[in-house]
């Protein structure tokens, strides 16, 4: 149900996006006609065009570092950022080699499945064919990166983080938003106090944490790391979701109660569907915590368990950075998040509006 709603919104977004050029052209021609008929002063139109161009330039300038690094990835290992070639807007001979290096071989290995029929000597052995989707050596990449291992590690950290954190955050946010109970104010005050401290002071605590984790022998455990991430995510996200839920009119629940819905149905049928935006925001924030955190992961995890950010930074040398590979690695690592961000943007803006904050 929740997923269905998100899917519908997504398809709306895609439709809007696809029809955008048509609508833009239509609007333009309408404007041009209005100017011709003399209904709209040309100076006004010029002002709009100039400020739009100005705003676009500002935005492009802000995003330039990302573009720069993308170009570095596409221009291949031949031109690192430190070569004497000056920067050009487009790489002279684009190559996807760094990306191939990152992804490496994509092979579905062949498995043999044997099924023995009981009480007989008969046994069937199936050999599934190995499927080779991408062979890195075809593109002249001999030793591909360990991206897939890091990816696996990262998923093994991020997924438990999200599961644990959501199961802690959602009930608490609901209770804080809708119920009046002992210590409610105290808990909220603590959470507001800790909102920002949660993630950042992890570094200050790192010494104590590192010592503790080593003592307990859980310093190289991905699950322990996931629980830690979930814990740091609790204050800010609980508070965020609580403020979001505050914005939902109580009358909906009252209507449901009048219709005879038990408390749990009020939650699943009214509160949860109506806080989709808040839930999506919190989901993304929590996922990002586990997906992109670096310092704690680097301190606690051993080489075998490196997550993507740690694996990425391991490529950085004191004096030189293999920029093409580095940025290809980083962009592959970040692209799913960036896509999710673009589509979830309306949710994030809605979820972050601090509707309960206006004074």
């Amino acid at each position: 149900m929740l997923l269905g709603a998100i899917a519908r919104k997504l398809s709306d977004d895609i439709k809007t996006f696809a029809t955008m050029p048509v609508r833009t052209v239509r609007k333009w021609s309408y404007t041009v006609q209005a100017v011709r008929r003399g209904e709209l002063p040309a100076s006004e139109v010029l002002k709009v065009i100039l400020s739009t161009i100005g705003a676009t330039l500002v935005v492009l300038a802000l995003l330039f570092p990302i573009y720069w690094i993308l170009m570095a990835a596409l221009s291949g290992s031949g031109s690192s950022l430190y070569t004497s070639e000056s920067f050009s807007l487009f790489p002279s001979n684009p190559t996807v080699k760094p990306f191939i290096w990152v992804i490496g071989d994509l092979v579905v290995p062949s498995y043999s499945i044997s099924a023995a029929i009981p009480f007989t000597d008969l046994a069937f052995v199936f050999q599934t064919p190995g499927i080779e989707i991408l062979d890195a050596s075809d593109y002249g990449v001999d030793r591909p990166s360990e991206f897939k291992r890091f990816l696996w590690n990262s998923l093994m950290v991020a997924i438990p983080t999200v599961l644990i954190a959501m199961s802690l955050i959602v009930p608490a946010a609901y209770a804080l938003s809708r119920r009046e109970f002992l210590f409610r104010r105290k808990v909220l005050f603590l959470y507001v106090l800790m909102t920002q401290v949660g993630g950042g002071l992890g570094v200050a605590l790192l010494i104590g944490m590192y010592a503790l984790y080593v003592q307990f022998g859980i310093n190289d455990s991905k699950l322990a790391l996931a629980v830690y991430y979930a814990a740091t995510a609790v204050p800010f996200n609980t508070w965020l979701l609580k403020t979001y839920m505050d914005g939902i009119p109580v009358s909906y629940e009252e209507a449901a109660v009048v219709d005879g819905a038990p408390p749990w149905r009020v939650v699943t049928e009214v509160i949860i569907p109506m806080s989709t935006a808040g839930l999506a925001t919190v989901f993304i924030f929590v996922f990002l915590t586990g997906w992109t955190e670096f310092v704690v992961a680097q301190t606690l995890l051993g080489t075998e368990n490196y997550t993507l950010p740690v694996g990425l930074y391991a490529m950085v040398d004191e004096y030189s950075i293999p920029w093409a590979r580095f940025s290809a690695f980083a962009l592959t690592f970040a692209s799913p998040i960036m896509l999710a961000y673009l589509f979830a943007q309306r949710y994030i803006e809605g979820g972050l509006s601090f509707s309960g904050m206006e004074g």
Partner: protein
Amino acid sequence: MSTVSRAADRIESVPFLTRDDASLLLVLPGLFVFSAFMLFPVLYLLGISFTNAEPANLFAGEGIVAVLTFGDALFVGLENYADVLTDGQFWNSFGVTWLFVATSVTLKIGASLAIALIVTSDLVRGKRVLRSLIIFPMGLPPIFTITVWRGIFSSAEFGLMNQLLTAFGVSSVAWLSGRWTAFVAYNVTEAWLAYPFMVIITVSALQDVPEELHEAAVVDGAGFLARFAHITLPSIKRPVLFASILTSAASFQQFLIPFVFNQGGPARANELIVVYGYREALSFQQYGRGAAISIIALVFIGAFMWLNVKKGKLADGVND
């Protein structure tokens, strides 16, 4: 839910509790996990700061007992604190940290307000597209963007910033080898990292400013600046103030930028306080000293947050 309501019935039999107090049970798991992973390490850190802990003695022995006795580390009282507070290195780090908070927060608020005004301006078309593009950097892992900015400020002739300077006819700068040039680089990077968050909050605050106010002011002949000062600013003050407090806390705790750029260098001149504590402990193996520094940092950030929450009436949301 049924467990909760059963517990609720039981709780009701306790005289001074009401049925609603059972909802505390929904909050407790989160509170417990948070305390276990944040508050307990703080206590442990506090303990370490009173000992002469270093890897050799701290990790001696195994199990719960060793945890409680801090291995074989010896209690040295306030020696670490006295040491740290008489060290010029500490005061340098302390000063640089506050300076960084002041400069970077000013830069962040200024830049984000400007950007937010641009992407909400009535004169600009395609605002939605611009806005989705603008928060793009938020989706990038910080370790990646910070390393990219290290490349931009590369001391080599060919870092992007130096190419820009040469294009304008200014000679190139060894950004990360000079104390103040590195400091400028930190500020620019921090501002770039923080602007998406600030812009999102400012934009949604700007959209809540009633259009009629502006129209009325235009009728009265108020110019852009007058309208900005008397209508826009007062209306967006609270959310922006809130975002500024969060972002100044982030600045105070900035770790990755100095760490990735030049390890807080050159010659430890720009070690922000968190970096300083981290390096004392994990690079120079002085766990006790590092813990003392971290505790001092924690006290300051705690006091700072507490003051802000109290003075800025941030907890007002708590009371409704």
